[in-house]
């Protein structure tokens, strides 16, 4: 593998995502709308999803960063990879000096690049909506974003490499809605459901981000859950992902 080629591929894919209207809607516009909605209204309070002492904008920012990760790492990359597979793009690239592994690393690089853009934009918007940048634990936030991206992208790529693109499109969008609404990404639910969700990637990611942004702490157990899911997803993708 060659870093120059991987960077070139990551740059190509990043530009493709940022120029694609649907991807842009999913990765930036929808998270931004959710941030404004949750940060400026009492929806979180009415759902009993506002922890004691927390501000709306803190919980909203943590949740929306999680939604942004799910948008680009799971749904966006899953759909993109599935259609690339359908049209033979993955095979074509794999025959170049970039190679099959370089194709996957390029995709991961693109996810990271878009994630940086998303995070910068959403934090800027959150700042304008009143988020204090002194409160969050930034190292914890970055760790949560990276571990969450690793876990979700591995499962997104696995889905893209095993299902038909139409099925991937449907499943990825449906799961995005479920992750955001009841999966623990945007807010924590008490009880058995909430505990169960924290063992899954979206719940663990939401929990890790809320710890970092709202409580100013690193949620090591949630990060561990994400790392385990990332390892499982990567192993499964290595076993079952097909370029054809």
């Amino acid at each position, binding site marked *: *593998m*060659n870093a120059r*080629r991987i960077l*070139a*591929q990551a740059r*190509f894919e990043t530009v*493709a995502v940022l*120029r*694609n209207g649907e991807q842009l809607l999913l990765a930036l516009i929808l998270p931004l709308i959710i941030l404004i909605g949750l940060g400026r209204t009492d929806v979180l309070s009415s759902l009993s999803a506002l922890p004691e002492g927390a501000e709306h904008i803190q919980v909203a920012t943590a949740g929306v960063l999680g939604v942004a990760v799910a948008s680009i790492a799971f749904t966006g990359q899953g759909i993109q990879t599935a*259609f*690339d597979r359908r*049209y*033979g*793009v993955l*095979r*074509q*690239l*794999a*025959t*170049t*000096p*970039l*190679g*099959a592994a370089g194709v996957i690393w390029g995709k991961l690089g693109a996810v990271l690049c878009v994630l940086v853009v998303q995070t910068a934009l959403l934090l800027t918007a959150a700042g304008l909506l009143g988020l204090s940048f002194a409160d969050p634990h930034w190292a914890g936030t970055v760790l949560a974003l990276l571990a969450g991206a690793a876990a979700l992208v591995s499962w997104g790529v696995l889905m893209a490499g095993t299902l038909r693109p139409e099925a991937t499109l449907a499943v990825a969008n449906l799961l995005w809605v479920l992750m955001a609404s009841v999966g623990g990404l945007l807010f924590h639910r008490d009880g058995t459901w909430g505990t169960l969700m924290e063992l899954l990637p979206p719940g663990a990611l939401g929990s890790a981000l809320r710890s970092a942004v709202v409580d100013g702490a690193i949620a090591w157990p949630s990060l561990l859950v994400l790392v385990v899911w990332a390892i499982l997803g990567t192993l499964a993708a290595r076993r079952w992902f097909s*370029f054809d």
Partner: protein
Amino acid sequence: MSTLPLRVERIALSYGRSTAVEDVSLTAEEGRVHALLGPNGAGKSSTIACAVGLRAPQSGSISIFGMDPWTDHSRTAELTGVMLQDGGLPMSARPLTVLRHLARLYREPADVDDLVGRLGIGSFASRSIRRLSGGQRQRVGLAAALVGRPRLVFLDEPTAGLDPQARIAVDEVVQDLRAAGTAIVLTTHDMADAERLADLVTVIDHGRVIAHGTVAGLTGVDDTDVPGRTARIVLDDDAPEAALIALAEEGVVHVDGPVITVDCRPGIADLHRITGVLATHRLDARSLEFRGKSLGDVFLELTGRNLR
């Protein structure tokens, strides 16, 4: 480099319990076009997938300029260009953007603008690939295969869906590549393409090589061990039995009313002998046509006429 551009030796590849390639050997030489033919599911694509390093064969060996495309992929890929049948192009991107990006993946790429001009891509280079016709996409796919200035090129159905003008352009590119010493492996269902372009032909079926040789060799032009030409005679009326008996001396006779077809035996100066039979029996032919075997005829003889 003195080693062969491509040497495939007795490879086998299975997907689970399904055998795709059982025993295929193949070589490609510099400055020559080697056509790989076979019905759908014969094992062509799997063979090529192994040759370009997309799959590792379970047995046998492959070398590209002496290197293994599976374990030494980045070096072999620098020397190899691949045109996939399904295009391999991202639909939302523009041809020029894709070609410039692909060029960045090679150490010594071709001049993209020059390639775009040669293949007539300029007029649609800034349109998204989704909006291109099949023929235009084929040309972009061909450019993608050539952007790394390869010394070995795999072309999968390069003329499928092309209009006659674009076919001529592709023919010219292939001839130019051959003249420049590039080894070309051509996979096609178009027998006319193979007959026109190939120096060597390998026919595979059920994962095995079933014929190999030059086009002339396979069609019998330079080999008397294969059947000779076919004569098709159309008379005004049904032929007398004596004439049919005489024609049967020349080969296998098929009669359909006034239409007589004779699959002549090899090595016979059939034109003179058959016209001699007609003259002897005072038969006027409305038409008389001699046809050598085409590669398509040979292909069907080898692989059968049943649909796969």
